[in-house]
Structures are given as C-alpha cells and as structure tokens.
C-alpha cells in the first residue's frame, strides 16, 4: 500500500510549531521555494500575527488556547496537491490525549486519513533526572519525605504514550513493524542546542527510551529524525532584531538533515516528509 501525501503536524504546546509554520508560510507566499500555495488558506489569522512579529524582528508568542483553530495549508509540489494539516495549533488537544486518555472522532479521522505524521519536539526544553543507575552510591533518606519527589511524569512517557494513543486511534497495532503512517520527528530550536551532533544522536541523548521505542515499532525506512531552527538565533537583542528587519525573516532558519547537512530552504522539511 502506498502512503498518501496528507500530512499531520503534531506537537505539544511550545514545541515550535508556530514559528515554523509562520516561516514556512512566509517562504511559500514569497514564492522563493519549490512548494507553492494551492489556494489561500481559509483561516491563517494566528499565523499572520506570528509572521508580523517576525517581520518586526520579534519572537513569536505562544499560541493562546483561544486561538486553537485547525490550520490547513493547501500546497502543491511537483504538480501534486495536498494539504498540510495542523489540527491543533496550540497543542492543547495533543496534551489532552495523554492527560485524559481519550480523543474525539475528529482526531480519529485525522490519524486515519493522514499517512504522514510530523512530530515536533523541542529538545532544549527537556529535562532529565539523575537517578541511582547514573550516580552510583548514595545514602538512603531515613526521613521519608516525599514532598521533594517530583510526581511529574517524564517527557519520554509523554511522547511514547502520545504515539501509542494516536496509533490506537488509527487502529494500527505494533505486531508487525509500522510502514504507514510515515513518521518525521523534527527536533526544533536546533540553534539553542549549540551542537555539532546529528539529529539522531541528540534524540538518543535526550530521549533514549523513546528513540528505542520508535526504532522497535517503526520500519527503519518509515521514519526519519531531523533538526530544525526556524529562527536561526534568539530574537532577544536589538542587533538580532535589526538583522530580521534588514534581511527579512525568510532569510533565516535552517534544517539539519539526518547526515548533519544544513539546508536553508525550510520548505524542504515538507519534501523530506513526503519522501519517507
């Protein structure tokens, strides 16, 4: 069976979806890339405000839950037209899937109809606990004090449970290795890592069990891991803002492919997703 080209963009809140979509839209609308707009999207209000902020050299703002609308960008590439669907711009619905362990029929439809999933993860924001297996010997606390024990669940838990749940919604089991949906894991805000490592190495370093899970569950050629810096640098100084004002936002941002090659054309991300 061949995968269709409909692409679902998934990410928890603050995983970098807004900045990417704004930069992508900027490039498509300015026609300096291979991807062209099929027709103007119905509702791009939230993206437009992000585009405006970037044009002023300001970082985008986290999407408010009230602006949590479905975003559909109809695009064309090599005479094929298809939709990029970001059903959950703010990422709230995605967090709710694992929070309440439920999803509505709309999500079921989305997981079934889109054969390509792009998952946004921001590795710079992930924390890792020290535990006994890493530290060696330590004393056992005689005063049992659970208050300082964080009850928060780990990021690895979140991402594994999210994919398990979305696969369940699509009725895909793990009995045999998954070919469809194709999975592109995008490690966002790559610039804040200050690294020369490959994207797969960063994923293994930050989320080793999650990476092991993906590798066990998906067929080797059915998933890919890349890096993305939509902004290229933080927009927190006057100097950085001036750069954006002078050279325009579409001059900034890059992708890091699986071989560590940097690519300025952010729309290549969509091509990579289509070629898995």
């Amino acid at each position, binding site marked *: 069976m061949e995968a269709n080209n409909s692409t679902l963009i998934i990410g928890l809140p603050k995983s970098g979806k807004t900045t990417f979509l704004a930069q992508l839209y900027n490039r498509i609308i300015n026609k300096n890339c291979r991807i062209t707009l099929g027709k103007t999207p119905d509702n791009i209000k939230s993206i437009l405000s992000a585009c405006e902020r970037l044009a002023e050299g300001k970082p985008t703002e986290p999407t408010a839950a009230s602006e949590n609308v479905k975003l559909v960008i109809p695009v064309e590439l090599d005479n094929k037209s298809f939709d990029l669907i970001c059903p959950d711009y703010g990422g709230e619905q995605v967090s709710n899937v694992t929070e309440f362990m439920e999803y509505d029929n709309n999500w079921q439809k989305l997981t079934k109809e889109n054969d390509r999933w792009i998952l946004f993860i921001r590795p710079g924001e992930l924390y890792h606990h020290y535990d006994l297996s890493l530290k060696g010997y330590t004393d056992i606390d005689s005063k049992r004090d659970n208050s300082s024990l964080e009850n928060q669940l780990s990021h690895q838990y979140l991402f594994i449970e999210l994919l398990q749940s979305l696969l369940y919604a699509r009725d895909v089991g*793990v009995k045999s290795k998954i070919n469809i949906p194709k999975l592109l894991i995008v490690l966002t805000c790559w610039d804040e890592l200050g690294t020369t490592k490959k994207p797969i190495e960063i994923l293994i370093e930050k989320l080793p069990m999650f990476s092991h899970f993906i590798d066990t569950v998906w067929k080797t050629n059915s998933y890919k891991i890349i890096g993305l810096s939509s902004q290229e640098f933080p927009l927190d100084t006057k100097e950085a803002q001036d750069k954006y004002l002078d050279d325009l936002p579409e001059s900034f941002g890059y992708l890091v492919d699986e071989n560590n090659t940097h690519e300025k054309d952010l729309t290549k991300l969509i091509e990579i997703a289509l070629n898995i």
Partner: protein
Amino acid sequence: MIKTCTNPDCPAPKGLCVESISPEYQQCQYWNETDEEDLKKEVKNNAKVNVIPWSGLALHPEGIKLLSHRSKPLIIGTIGAPNAGKTSYLGMIYTLLFNGKKFDNWNFAGSHTLIAWENLAKYLKIKPNGKVDFPEPTPSNSDYYSLYHLALRNKETIYDILYADSSGEVFNLWANDVNDINAENARWIYSNSDAFIFFIDCVSVIEGRGRTKQAIVQLASQIASNLNDRPIVVVWSKADRIDEIRPNIKASIEQTIEQFLPQAYTIEISNFSKNDPDVLCHKNNLAVSEYLFDKLCEPKKMEMIPEIENTTDIFFKYRGTYGS
C-alpha cells in the same frame, strides 16, 4: 434522500442492527430516511469521545484481557521476604530502559502501564538533598494486585510481559500456610506466573543470619512444591554487600537452593552502580529478566512418543477387534 440509521453506534447495514441484534435492520425504528444535509450536521455535532482502553496504571488480573487479544501475556512473579528489593528491582528495570540501556535481544515496543512504571522509578531518583527514597512497602492486603506491562520485540515477534509485584508479608504468610486466607494474591501469583524471580536479601542475611536463613528455606521449599518446569532466577539482591555474609550461612543458603531449586539460575544484583556500565547494577538487573524471557520462548520439547512397553494403560494395550 438516503436511508440510514440514526444511531451512530449501529453498524447496520454492514453489521447486525444493535436494537434487534439481527440482520433485519429495516424493521428497526431508528432506520429512517435521512436528509443528507441532516446527516452531515449530525456528524459534526457528534464529536464523540473515544476512550483509550489503558490508563497507564498497573493492571489487575481482570485487565489482562487488554493484552490477550494479541498474544498470551507471559507473567513473571516476584517472590521474596519484605524489603528484599522486589519493587526496587522493577523500578530499576524501567530506570535502565529509561536511560537507554537495552536487553540484548528484546527491544522495547511500548507499555500499557507507563504511569505505574514511572511511579516505581521515581523512588530511584536522586532528590535535591542528594539522597534517595526506596519504595514504600508494597501493600499487603490480600486483594492487592499490580501487574506491570512491557511489550518487547524479539526478532519479528511481539511478546507481552507482565511483572507481578507482591508484598513480602503476603508471601511469608503463604510460605507458612499456602491456604492462608490473607494470602490470596500470593496464591494467584504462584499459580498463574510463567516464571519467577526469587529474591534473597543480602543485607537481611547479614543482619538476621540463621533467622533469615530459616525463612528462606521455608519459602524455597514452598516455591519448589508445584514449580514443575517453570523457569526461576534466584537473585541475591543488595549484592554490593554480599561479601559481608558469614561464609557458612552463605554456603548453607546455596545448599538450600541447590536442594529445592536445582534448575534455578543464580545471579547477584544491586541498585548501586560503581562503574558505567556496571555489572551488578546495569548488566545483571537486565540479565535476570532476559534469562527468563529467553527460557520462556525456548521451543518446548514435545513428548509425543509414549512409552508403551509394559504399559498397563488399556488405551495402548488395545490392538483392535481383530486381535481378540
């Protein structure tokens, strides 16, 4: 105008009508002529919520059906005295996987009890004061069950593994009287597990000496009674201190194991790592489970050829009517 059923959950006409549980869906009161536009509206309003069938918490025996549709889950029972490190062992398995350690031939393919695993592992996290809390004693009420799930892929096959955690107190009751009214969950674990991990607590042996040894003998003999060919690993837990055990007591426990559980594989583990990778902590904790996984999946010898010489079994003695 098209004909449809107004009940969105009814599979008719593809399946049986849910009202009459028959194929005669056209007789059903909900089978109506519906305007296509109405139908679209209905679909829109019907943002029905689908509940994911697992919660992430530990499973109870009745929850096993969640997994049994795809494979027969393999249950590994943990047995040992209170504070022998059974729960910590499970926490350590998850912690090791969490940090990227792997089994040699068994790859992690997810879990339906991730929250329960995370709860176990939190006790091994270093707190801001640099110390750790070990898990609180596992509840000893007789209806307490907690099964921890791992889906693992070996070559092309997915196996569902369930670790059954138990309270040491309950196993002590069971060791002295297998019919003890308060040992129901120990009985369940003993009769339903496909394999066992038997924990011997080095620190308890150091401190309790002969007294601890006596309890180990009692428990080992009870485990052996109906073990049959189910694989078992004998684990010396907290083995970073194993050298402090009096040699005569250690020899005597080893002899007990040899006597009651001659087939057991014996290994030392610890939650404290001296090196990275560390043998006791990193390698051996995983090896305990991997040994059992491998054993459980070994092709079983089929005993198809009955020994019929000198049998008294009339089935084998029957030579057909022509012989009479």
